[in-house]
């Protein structure tokens, strides 16, 4: 057989009807994740056409985007996020009830950010096709799944037919050579990759991340990498499954058991890019020369090393506008910019190892005066796990707020927002204008850099804290 890439293997196994010049392929979807913000209009469409959900067994629903991260005991508490958000949450309950879907709702100990709970429950598995009305669905590619975000019309297509119409994308290999140096993590690596290939460098492509640094990573780290594929324009990012993947999945609630588990492992082991398979494009990045990375502008490709000066692109209008918005200057490093808020959370960096990294910096220290720090675990399970390890005490003792799970300040839909002009060092994935509040300024960074910045009160290098520890 012709050598194939990981992507091609997963794609080929899911083609129901092949593509032609006139028609896209019909692709079968193994797992459809839904949340309250991008699904209501899709359910409406089903109602209008009198259609059922074709495969409730392959559909998993949760609430994350507009949910409060302060404790909620009754539905009345929802008012804290505003009337419309509360209505959306109530509508989600109704839709899932009416169409017979599995909803990990408010009362569920398994609720959380959709891209955190899929893997955590073992619903995310190698070789699956996974979609969600959310661009960071790319996260699940860390397991060797083909996972990508779709629009609400397509959410309706998948609910009704469990299939999507898709043209086969191109492939882009990102080869990461060498190992990450001390104090430099997966978030720094993915920011550096986006800085190198640009926010549209992956448009039309599925990325496969390869190389020594990737193989050495645990699953949480791989998810951070794949999560931000979309920030380089790629709908999906993938990493071939290996022993690390299998060890993570073993025993989780939704994975196969017994003989079925062994059979699954045998199938999953085939999910590697064959020698001699070719990619449409490839780039190489040297991990060993990286330092902690931070963004200085208003898209995730505008990124510098923590000690590096902000570049100068002269009078380029977009560049100038971004610098003006961020109130930063070419030629100066980001360190030293005063910080108002620090946010540790989001589907990029809210898993247990992310919280561990922030806690390692914060342990025994205190958030600087005048800085507000929010730590929002990715799921209720991550929250419980962190509490079992005493991380909540580390954060609370340091003066940070320890919250319930959800998207929170990543997109500020639930009332967790920054004020105009305030600067937030955030472990999330988008530093777009206004993303975290009207006029709010966002600096993307790793959990360690975020924690170091909270302690110093300005954007700061985490390495001195890690060395001391």
């Amino acid at each position, binding site marked *: 057989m012709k050598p194939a890439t990981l992507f091609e293997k997963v794609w080929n196994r899911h083609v129901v009807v092949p593509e032609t010049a006139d028609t896209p392929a019909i692709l*079968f979807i193994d797992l459809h994740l839904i949340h309250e913000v991008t699904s209501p209009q899709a359910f409406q469409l089903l109602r209008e056409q009198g259609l059922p959900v074709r495969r409730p067994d392959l559909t998993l629903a949760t609430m994350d985007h507009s949910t409060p991260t302060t404790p909620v005991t009754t539905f009345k508490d929802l008012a804290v996020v505003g009337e419309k958000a509360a209505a959306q949450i109530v509508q989600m309950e109704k839709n899932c009830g009416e169409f017979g879907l599995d909803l990990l709702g408010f009362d569920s100990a398994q609720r959380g950010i959709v891209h955190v709970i899929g893997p955590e429950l073992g619903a995310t598995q190698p070789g699956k096709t996974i979609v969600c*009305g959310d661009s960071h669905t790319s996260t699940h590619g860390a397991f060797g799944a083909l996972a990508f975000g779709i629009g609400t019309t*397509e959410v309706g297509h998948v609910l009704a037919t*469990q299939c999507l119409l898709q043209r086969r994308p191109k492939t882009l290999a990102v080869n990461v050579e060498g190992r990450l140096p001390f104090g430099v993590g997966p978030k720094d690596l993915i920011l550096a990759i986006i800085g190198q290939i640009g926010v*549209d460098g992956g448009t039309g492509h599925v990325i496969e991340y390869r190389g020594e640094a990737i193989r050495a990573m645990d699953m949480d780290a791989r998810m951070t990498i794949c999560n931000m594929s979309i920030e380089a324009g790629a709908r999906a990012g993938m990493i071939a499954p290996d022993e690390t993947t299998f060890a993570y999945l073993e025993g989780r609630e939704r994975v196969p058991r017994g003989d079925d588990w062994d059979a699954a492992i045998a199938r999953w082991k085939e999910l590697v890019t064959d020698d001699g398979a070719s990619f449409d494009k490839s780039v190489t990045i040297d991990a060993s020369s990286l330092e902690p990375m931070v963004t200085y502008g208003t898209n995730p490709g505008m990124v510098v090393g923590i000690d590096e000066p902000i570049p100068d692109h002269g009078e380029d209008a977009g560049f100038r506008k971004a610098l003006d918005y961020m109130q930063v200057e070419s030629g100066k490093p980001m360190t030293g910019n005063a910080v108002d808020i620090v946010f540790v959370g989001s589907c990029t960096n809210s898993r247990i190892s992310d919280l561990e990294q922030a806690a390692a910096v914060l342990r025994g220290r205190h958030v600087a005066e005048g800085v507000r720090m929010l730590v929002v675990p990715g799921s209720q399970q991550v929250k419980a796990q962190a509490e079992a390890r005493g991380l909540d005490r580390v954060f609370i003792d340091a003066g940070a707020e320890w919250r319930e799970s959800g998207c929170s300040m990543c997109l500020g839909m639930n009332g967790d927002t920054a004020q105009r002009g305030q600067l937030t060092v955030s472990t999330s994935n988008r530093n777009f204008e206004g993303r975290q509040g009207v006029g709010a300024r966002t600096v993307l960074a790793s959990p360690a850099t975020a924690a170091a910045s909270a302690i110093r009160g300005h954007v700061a290098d985490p390495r001195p804290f890690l060395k001391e520890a």
Partner: protein
Amino acid sequence: MQAVTAIRSRTVVMPAKDIDTDQIIPARFLTTTTREGLGESLFCDLRYDADGNPKPEFELNRPEAAGCSILVAGKNFGCGSSREHAPWALVDSGIRAVISTEIADIFRSNALKNGLLAIVVDPQTHAWLLDNPGAEIEIDVVNSTVTLPTGESVEYPIDAFARYCLVEGIDQLGYLLQNQDAIRDYEASRP
């Protein structure tokens, strides 16, 4: 869906690159459970100042932008989130086509499903459009061409199926539902 065969309009030009979907429609407007009425919030934070007054310098607020249904934008338009609220808001505001040199994948896919033509043209044509805001141009959806007032006509690439659906006003879900037998066979063949 309404059939779209031709669009003739003056253009409104937003030359900025990387206009993301958070700018097209900020997240705080996504709490809706319908598709309608999002036009009010289109480009909200670019269009209005802190006190809610329209910014006169913003491209879509200028008097000559009134009635324009073709938006010419900088490279990588629609990047970021998968929110279909972005094309819904554009359509609700009367925009029927977006032209750039590059359009983000998910945005383009969403746009075409809502009768919003999202197309890329060559850099020269794009540069001409950027330099001539307000130019009256014609998009022939049947033949995939853009005709400038200079009389020059250029072809743009578009997926054959997407064009067919636009021109015939066909909803893609209908096509998927016609293939239920194939889907059933596929499901039956799985381990």
